[in-house]
């Protein structure tokens, strides 16, 4: 009887695994969202616990320090105000030129701030979960960035949360452009399992004129990422496949290992 019982368990678990692995993608993502929603009560708890040291520090911050911070923020606010006026003037000028040459008007970026609440527990994927979901208008394949540069794209969405696949994950392919006179283009691919700051820029032409320090931005090809989002800087380049094409190492502008808040970009 005991033997039969453990054979039965083996059979049931194997069958359940095969059944789950053969589910169609839509059912798979529904199942993942349903199971993932079990953790929702813990999200709030974790957020509160993370905020506790911050609020405790706020309670004990001396008045002098607060005044110093206030003064610094005032100064920064004035600087930003001046920059905004300058930007508005440039925008007007840009608009005049666009009208003059008949160029299409660029769509403005709409951004929503999100907090990173979880990281992928598996070591072989690079994803994070953010606290925005379909109730906030999030949908798949929206670009995610910080003020420094590109982070990744939204891969799946639940009602309250969304999964973001980072730029260093094998499932996030980004068409990128090097800001050099030739505007060399390639595909961003992951650097390695231990790399959080470096990615590879592959499929560059064999005669690409790359130099260390050149900026890499999104090319806008592929339809997921708008053109012009900064990605990183070229560190070094080497010919591969007997010089057929060039591969470059890119240092990311964003530290993917310490993401706390990100912006979701709505086209």
């Amino acid at each position, binding site marked *: 009887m005991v033997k039969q019982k*453990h054979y039965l368990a083996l059979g049931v678990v194997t069958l359940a695994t095969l059944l789950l692995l053969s589910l169609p993608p839509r059912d798979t993502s529904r199942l993942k969202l349903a199971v993932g929603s079990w953790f929702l009560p813990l999200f709030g708890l974790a957020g509160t616990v993370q905020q506790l040291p911050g609020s405790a520090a706020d309670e004990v911050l001396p008045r002098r320090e607060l005044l110093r911070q206030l003064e610094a923020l005032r100064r920064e606010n004035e600087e930003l105000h001046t920059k905004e006026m300058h930007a508005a003037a440039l925008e007007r000028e840009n608009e005049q030129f666009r009208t003059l040459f008949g160029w299409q008007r660029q769509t403005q970026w709409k951004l929503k701030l999100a907090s990173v609440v979880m990281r992928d527990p*598996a070591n*072989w*994927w690079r994803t994070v979960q953010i606290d925005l979901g379909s109730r906030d208008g999030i949908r798949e394949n929206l670009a995610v960035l910080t003020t420094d540069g590109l982070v990744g794209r939204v891969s799946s969405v639940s009602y309250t949360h969304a999964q973001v696949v980072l730029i260093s994950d*094998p499932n996030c392919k980004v068409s990128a452009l090097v800001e050099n006179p030739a505007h060399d283009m390639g595909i961003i691919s992951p650097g*390695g399992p231990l790399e959080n700051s470096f990615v590879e820029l592959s499929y560059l032409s064999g005669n690409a004129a790359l130099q260390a320090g050149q900026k890499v931005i999104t090319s806008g090809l592929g339809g997921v990422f708008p053109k012009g989002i900064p990605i990183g800087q070229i560190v070094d380049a080497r010919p591969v496949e007997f010089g057929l094409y060039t591969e470059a190492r890119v240092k990311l502008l964003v530290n993917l290992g*310490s993401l706390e808040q990100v912006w979701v970009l709505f086209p």
Partner: protein
Amino acid sequence: MNLLQTILILAAAFFAVFGEATLGGLRQWLSAQVDLLPALMVYAALNADILTLSLLAVCGGLWFDALSANPPGVSILPLFAVGYAIWLQRELILRELPFAQVVLGAVASAIAPALSVLVLLTIGQQPLLGWGSLWQWLVMTAGGAVAAPIIFVLFDWCKHALGYQPRSEPSFRPDREIQRDRKI
């Protein structure tokens, strides 16, 4: 105790998966995250029945896959394979010895992720692998080796705190009573 033990093991798996996804200290320091489920599976294989073992594999695997980019079901079979192999040999294993717990924790934590990656490659996924994965694998193995005896201690403590205590036998034994009588 059996039902309570099953609930405790499943609750531990739930919080372990949540902890792995939210606590990033070790990940930032060592560039790898430790997986506690294989070590928990070692405890379940040596102390619980096959039903608990199966439930832990299915629920733990599903919870892990739901929070990661794994397709659901990838982690179930590797976890069950590890637990089942230990369960079959449970009578031969000196489960009370910390050394045995360390070795089993290390072996389980080494085999389970390797099998998961194998399943992923088999179903056509492309996980992030490279020479750095060896380091991550070593960290996971060491993490499992450290975690297994701790899990045993914690669950033994829970068992003592929540389970029925064995009734202590009185020193009095009627068969060894000395009969005294004035008549000889």
